[in-house]
């Protein structure tokens, strides 16, 4: 630790934090190259890279990336806000909990992509119908995660909150919500991955449902039998999910843990 660093928690240098990620990435690329040598139908990293470059030049890369960001961002924001709000209510009211939780658990256990044909018929084959399925599909996981986190809040903290004048809404906002936040984050991450599965399931079901362009790529790969563009699109989606995890979920989780004393000082994340 440098002498100028007053904090007792040493900051891990960037190369030590980023190093393992790069090493594992290169190893995976090598594995992929080996596999593509033995499997004729599988395009290798070089061909996929060239296709990615082509997609970057003609704007397909940016288009898919931007539309995935917009679509997932919008749908997930709705699912997160409604889900956390409902979860807080359900978690703090036992009667509501007893009535709703079994149905929510059933909904969460069921593959949400089963709703896609229903939505396509009832709401029509538009991106809006897919958006509805993706938002509502992510909601049970968020609601149940929040509800469980609320139920796991230590009663001592609620008593402390009440003794210092918090009550009803203020108790929920100033004590229950922050105390439950780590658990709520877990529910949100689960909801996020369910939303993404649901989105791609919709794109596979029908290119007409496509909100992001992934469905168009699937359609073209089906017709030509060449999956180079598909592999390139998979890489774009991988990059997207990795960015979201590193920049949003991992950071928030880390900050929550640090502020609650759940990280041994100085250990790299």
């Amino acid at each position: 630790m440098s002498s100028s660093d007053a904090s007792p928690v040493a900051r891990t240098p960037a190369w030590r934090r980023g190093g393992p990620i790069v090493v594992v990435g290169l190893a995976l690329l090598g594995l992929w190259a080996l596999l593509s040598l033995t499997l004729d139908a599988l395009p290798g990293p070089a061909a996929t890279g060239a296709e990615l470059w082509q997609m970057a030049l003609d704007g397909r890369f940016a288009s898919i990336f931007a539309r995935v960001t917009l679509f997932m961002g919008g749908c997930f924001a709705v699912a997160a806000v409604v889900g956390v709000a409902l979860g807080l209510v359900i978690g703090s009211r036992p009667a509501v909990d007893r009535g709703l939780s079994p149905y929510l658990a059933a909904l969460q256990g069921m593959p949400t992509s089963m709703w896609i044909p229903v939505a396509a018929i009832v709401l029509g084959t538009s991106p809006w119908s897919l958006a509805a399925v993706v938002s509502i599909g992510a909601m049970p996981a968020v609601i149940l995660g929040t509800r469980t986190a609320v139920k796991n809040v230590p009663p001592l903290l609620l008593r402390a909150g009440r003794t210092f004048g918090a009550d009803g809404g203020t108790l929920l906002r100033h004590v229950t919500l922050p105390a439950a936040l780590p658990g709520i984050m877990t529910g949100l991450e689960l909801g996020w991955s369910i939303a993404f599965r649901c989105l791609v399931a919709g794109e596979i079901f029908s290119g007409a449902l496509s909100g992001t362009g992934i469905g168009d790529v699937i359609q073209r790969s089906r017709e030509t039998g060449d999956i180079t563009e598909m592999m390139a699109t998979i890489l774009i989606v991988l990059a997207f999910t990795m960015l979201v995890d590193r920049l949003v979920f991992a950071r928030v989780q880390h900050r929550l843990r640090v502020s609650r004393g759940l990280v041994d000082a100085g250990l790299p994340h």
Partner: protein
Amino acid sequence: MRRGPSGCGKSTLLDLVAGHTRPARGSVAVDGSPVTGPGPDRVMVFQEHALFPWLSVADNVGFGLKQAGVPAAERESTVARWLAKVGLTDAASLHPHQLSGGMRQRAALARAFAMRPAVLLMDEPFSALDAPSRDRLHVELQELWRETGTTILFVTHNVREAVALGDRVIVLSSGPGRIIGDVRVSLARPRVVESERVVALAQDVRRLLDAADQLGIAAPRGGEDDHVVI
């Protein structure tokens, strides 16, 4: 100061005064006004510090003031004053997990005193601390009490702690809970648990408990007997 059914244990008694629980029979009144629910005039200090782990020490101390709608500037100065009184000024921006056990309980004391309660309810606040921290906090609590004149209802299993801190030691027996002794303590302050006169008086109180035990009034055993200090 306290009325109501005495079929209650120590935590129930504090809960009744705090307004977390309602009595099955009888009533609870503080300064003549009946208790109907939790209020800022009656603040509880718990056995575990019960600080909010996501807030800094300063925000923890200011939590009750914020709930009471005290403006930010006034809140800050009040928080700073109480942090100084308990010796935690340097720790204001730290989180509870970065403090020692004694410092956490000090922060909890500051959070409670900052509310200027009429009655401070303390539920074995020092029983989880190491002996040196506990001894220091005994002295500090007596100073804070002298400065503020707050009525303190202090529950403890430790007879010497009760005699060292209390003006009045009320001895409760368990199962069924009833008052088996009411001892006035008029020794000079600040008192420490090791002082001879505290030890001697504590032995008298201990004999009350033993006598009750032999009469079969109650079966206070080990950690089951409660001593309430007012």
